[in-house]
């Protein structure tokens, strides 16, 4: 607390980062509550949802949209609002918060890069793909994309200039980009990113490390479990699968080596019985609630805990993730309403 560390003490944190933490806590107060969700569930049409959302912190964000409202429009506008909030903070942040916030964006950047590689591989017009990229993952060399016509050019001119360059260079060779399955590329990059992020948080130390290491370890384990389950019956071999597990987390190293050898979901459940948290998550699943839903719920729980302490950067990460869950919830409710499937509307995860 009095620490020799430059980051995270009660004496030093507020000098550079206090304003931003306050901003984020203000934003966090606007996250939809159970009462808001109760109102939204009772709507019969998307227009009613628009009215209810106008009374929350969202305000008039849908005001200029033409009359038959679509769920995709709602999703876009919510995301736009989140991006504006994030960019507002990012533009004013100083080190080390700036780097931390950048790390948050690398995940989305990986998705964008993968989309661009896919487009180039199939000879599509890459400039069209820019519109389809996730806004939080924009990088500067996107402007040079129009000159790119092959994967080699993409690699050498564009990708090398991105902050993802170290991940790409360590894991992927130029020739491999053509042959590897695009999902394998995506997961390899993401593994490198997670490991890097985890190490950075450890370097920062203090409250940040405390909060973020839990969250990131859960993310690593969740990916390992998901990759295992989803690769049953596909062409992904067990060795390849093991290469995609991040090298940290509760399950690492014994759990992951066991997971790499499994063949069906019951074996996976047996292995996870040894870990208390995951045993509880799995026992929580049912016909109505899938494993993914249980994971989302646990993630929300972890992210909420970040706001219980101060002087750490965890709040920024958690705020983004909670808002994303909120957007997912709103879109789910909107879809249930527009497709007249109100019986399933309660499958979202309330946050506060």
């Amino acid at each position, binding site marked *: 607390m009095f620490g020799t560390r430059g980051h995270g003490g009660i004496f030093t944190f507020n000098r550079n980062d206090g304003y931003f933490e306050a901003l984020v806590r203000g934003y966090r107060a606007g996250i939809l509550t159970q009462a808001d969700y109760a109102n939204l569930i009772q709507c019969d049409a998307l227009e009613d949802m628009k009215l209810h959302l106008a009374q929350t912190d969202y305000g008039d964000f849908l005001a200029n949209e033409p009359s038959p409202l679509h*769920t995709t429009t709602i999703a876009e506008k919510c995301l736009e609002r989140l991006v504006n909030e994030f960019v507002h903070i990012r533009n004013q942040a100083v080190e080390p918060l700036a780097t931390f916030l950048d790390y948050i964006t690398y995940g989305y950047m990986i*998705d964008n890069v*993968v*989309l661009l590689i*896919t*487009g180039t591989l*199939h000879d*599509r017009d890459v400039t069209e*793909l820019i519109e*389809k990229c*996730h806004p939080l993952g924009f990088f500067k060399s996107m402007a040079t994309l129009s000159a790119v016509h092959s994967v080699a050019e993409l690699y050498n001119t564009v990708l090398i200039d991105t902050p993802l360059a170290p991940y790409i260079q360590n894991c992927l060779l130029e020739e491999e980009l053509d042959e590897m*399955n*695009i*999902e*394998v590329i*995506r*997961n390899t990059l*993401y593994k490198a990113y997670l490991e890097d992020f985890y190490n950075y948080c450890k370097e920062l130390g203090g409250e940040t490390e405390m909060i973020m290491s839990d969250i990131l370890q859960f993310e690593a384990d969740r*990916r390992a479990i*998901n*990759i295992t*389950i*989803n*690769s049953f019956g*596909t*062409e*992904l071999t067990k060795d390849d699968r093991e290469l*995609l597990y991040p090298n940290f987390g509760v399950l690492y190293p014994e759990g992951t080596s066991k997971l790499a050898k499994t063949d069906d979901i019951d074996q996976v459940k047996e292995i996870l019985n040894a870990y208390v948290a995951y045993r509880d998550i799995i026992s929580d699943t049912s016909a109505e609630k*899938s*494993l*993914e*839903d249980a994971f989302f719920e646990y993630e929300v729980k972890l992210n909420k805990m970040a706001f219980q302490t101060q002087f750490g950067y965890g709040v920024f990460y958690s705020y983004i993730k909670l808002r994303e869950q909120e957007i*997912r919830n709103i*879109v*789910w409710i909107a*879809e*249930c309403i527009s*497709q007249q*499937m109100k019986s*399933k509307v309660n499958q979202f995860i309330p946050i506060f």
Partner: protein
Amino acid sequence: MSGKNRIPIFPTRMALTTMKSKLKGAVTGHSLLKKKSDALTIRFRAILSKILQNKQLMGATMREASFSLAAAKYAAGEIAHTVYENTTTATMRCRLANENVAGVHLPTFERIKDEGASNPQELTGLAKGGQQINKSREQYVKAIESLIELASLQTAFITLDEVIRTTNRRVNAIEYVVKPRIENTISYIIAELDEGDREEFYRLKKVQGKKKRDLAAKEAEKAQKKELEGVLNPGSSRHQPAQQRTILEEGEEDNLVLFS
């Protein structure tokens, strides 16, 4: 029109036989076409009820599929763009096959099952939402299959409809146009032939009557002459030459009647 629509033909016996065989042909044709029309109508009604069932099923399937897509988007995020960019060739194809129902060729669509081909997109959502994506994929496959079936049924429906209409038109044409004409023609020919026969008969009778009258007249003349001869000359020597002469004369008189 006088209402007597018949085929203009010269009324001979051969024409009658031809017409009779035509009538037989028309009757056979009529019964065959009627059978075909009935078979097609049965098939038609069966298809109609199947279409109804299928449409409702398809509605439910499409609804489930859309909902499963919403669930997949919830779990895996915005996968649409990656999926679009990654598509190369179609993994599901369908083929047009032919089915024969009572002589009608109905097109049917079949799904070509390519079991061995691996799907390059099977790893989508590997780290997040893979199961929901797979479920969604299965639902949409089911939806496509029900759409293919519905397409087959609907094309069959339309084709059958056309064919049934034409067949019924032909059946009615034979029943109400062709057969009556032929029957009328036959009755006309028969009437004409009978009339000819009657004329023949009448003529013969008239000729016979005339002959009889002539014969009677001759007999009366002969009798008169005999009486005169008997009075003038009681000798019988003249009779024989007279008889001879009479037979000869009779022969001549006959010639006169027959050939004048």
